[in-house]
């Protein structure tokens, strides 16, 4: 079955953050792997540790945040063991990242063209010829469906719409021809209509360049339309993982089920939405076996003692009482 080559493997990653004068794990014992060409979605609510996971992989964790344990293997190299300098030869070259807010990622004082040229100079060392560099930029802008790339390069970020800026960001991160793209809520700040277009662009880029994609979102629909596999993150732990269709159509974890049922839609008009009371437990209250137990309608005393992993093929869940 080993047809695809593994590109990224995360093993027992834990990230601790300072809170109330102490370090608490915000990401706990995360393990997963991505093969070349995979598209994997990571869904979870705010505070579940989605962004920290991506930042840990890119080596972009804020200074005060501690990466306590775990290994991140990229193409066989353990990124947690190499020097900052060595890491820099991966970040921005083989691994690139897009963020939610394109307006803060771009410098408002410089033209789009200037900012793209800067990236080419620093991150595309294979091309030295200025003409070839320009060519690479134009190609990249065309790939993200921006009309009239030459005009776009003369513009400043404020002269463009949110959707266009996000396209420019995508063009920029694709310049070094990365192998792994970490997308941290790239469509969240956009209108529903623009969101669809950006998703199409990402899908095309992924197929064309055989890109490996880790998509982070709180939006189930976004993940559904783009990712083959989905991992559900709750309070810093992956509670369910499997092929997207299975996870979203036959969810095993009560939390995934609740997320899906709480979605308002016209078909549920007049009926109250299924809700889980309460909130994601704060950092200092996360030392119990199952963090969802206090909100879980199927909770039994057994859940406070231990929690078991149940597997159905490549679809697994961290719950004593899997659904369906």
């Amino acid at each position, binding site marked *: 079955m080993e047809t695809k080559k593994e590109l990224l493997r995360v093993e027992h990653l834990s990230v601790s953050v300072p809170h109330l004068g102490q370090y608490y794990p915000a990401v706990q014992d995360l393990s997963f792997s991505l093969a070349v060409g995979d598209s994997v979605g990571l869904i979870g609510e705010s505070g579940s540790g989605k962004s920290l996971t991506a930042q840990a992989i890119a080596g972009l964790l804020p200074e005060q945040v501690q990466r306590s344990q775990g290994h991140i293997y990229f193409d066989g190299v353990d990124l947690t063991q190499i020097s900052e300098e060595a890491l820099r030869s991966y970040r921005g070259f083989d691994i690139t990242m897009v963020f939610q807010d394109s307006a803060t990622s771009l410098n408002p004082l410089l033209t789009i063209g200037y900012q793209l040229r800067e990236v080419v100079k620093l991150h595309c060392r294979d091309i030295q010829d200025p003409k070839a560099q320009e060519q690479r930029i134009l190609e990249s802008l065309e790939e993200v469906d921006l009309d009239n790339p030459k005009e776009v390069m003369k513009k400043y970020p404020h002269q463009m719409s*949110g959707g266009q800026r996000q396209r420019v960001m995508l063009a920029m991160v694709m310049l070094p021809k990365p192998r792994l793209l970490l997308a941290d809520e790239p469509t969240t700040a956009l209108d529903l209509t623009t969101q669809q277009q950006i998703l199409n662009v990402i899908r095309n880029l992924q197929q064309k360049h055989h890109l490996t994609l880790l998509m982070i979102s709180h939006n189930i629909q976004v993940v559904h339309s783009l990712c083959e596999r989905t991992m559900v993150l709750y309070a810093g732990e992956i509670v369910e993982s499997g092929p997207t269709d299975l996870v979203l159509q036959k969810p095993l974890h009560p939390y995934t089920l*609740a997320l899906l049922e709480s979605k308002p839609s016209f078909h549920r008009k007049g009926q109250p939405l299924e809700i889980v009371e309460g909130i994601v437990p704060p950092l200092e209250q996360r030392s119990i076996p199952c963090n969802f137990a206090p909100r879980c309608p199927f909770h039994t005393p057994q859940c406070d003692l231990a929690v078991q992993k149940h597997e159905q093929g490549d679809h697994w869940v961290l719950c004593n009482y899997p659904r369906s």
Partner: protein
Amino acid sequence: MGFVQLPSVLKGGETVPPSQPPLLQVQDLLKTYPVSKTSLFSAPNRFIAVNHLDFQLEKGEVLGLIGESGCGKTTTARMIARLLTPDSGKILLNGTDFLPLDDYDFKPFRRQIQMIFQDPQQVLNPSLTIEQILREPLIGFNLYGTAQQRRDYIRQQLVDVGLDDSYLTRYSHQLSGGQRQRVAILSALLVEPALLIADEVVSALDLSIQAQILNLLQELRQKYQLSMLFISHDLHVVSWLADRILVMYRGSLMEEAPTEELLRNPIHPYTQSLLAAANLIEGSPPQEVIGWGVASAECCPYAEVCPKSSNLCRTQRPPIQVLAKGHRVACHCQQ
């Protein structure tokens, strides 16, 4: 919380129509903003934020207002709440146009129209406790005379939004996003408004919290027959809650219909593409418009990107046509 009759003073000069008027009528509402000139000698341009908008809202009804960001949803809401002054037009509450009134005469209307916003963090004063925050509107409108009565009333109403007495002594930063939104909703409802304007109230919330707040709004609505103007860019949320949906694009009304009618039978190409973007029907999402300049009054605002646009669309503004089943649409295709 029942409906409060308007003081008779306000009805003095007005002639009250015989049949009961709708709760809210918006007539020919126009709001423009000055934009920078293209050259020193050109005439000052004005950006049309809300372009001759007409609609009404009946008592007990939830009207959903939907459109992309920048289409004038929030501007409309702010004008109805009198946080912005329109250039022209009328806004009638229970048949009375309150725009010509001065601030003193407007005060009873202020109580009738309450608004809740996307980010409760910015609405709740960080240096006041929740009880102090909730007391403010009661003091401002001089309701429930004594301090003790006010306290009792607040305690009694807290249950309505799923909170209890223990929250009263806390500060807003000690609450979660969902709890803050509950406090914001309660502070709007304490003065028993006739109309609640909800501007993107669930957009900033996580899915599970969003569901809690939506259920709360639905419960409150049934309990108090609340009339609501519900603004959102999320078609799924709007279609779940609203009785009628109004689609706006670049400040203009595109289509309006009862929710079911709109979803089953969308007429305007823009509505169709919005529904497609939300995966409600087959089709392609609308195209992005770059740099919404000064919209010409002489064409359909959607003509530039509309797949069905003709010469007529670019030279003449489509009139609003009233169709069967309370369906209104502004499109030349429908002639």
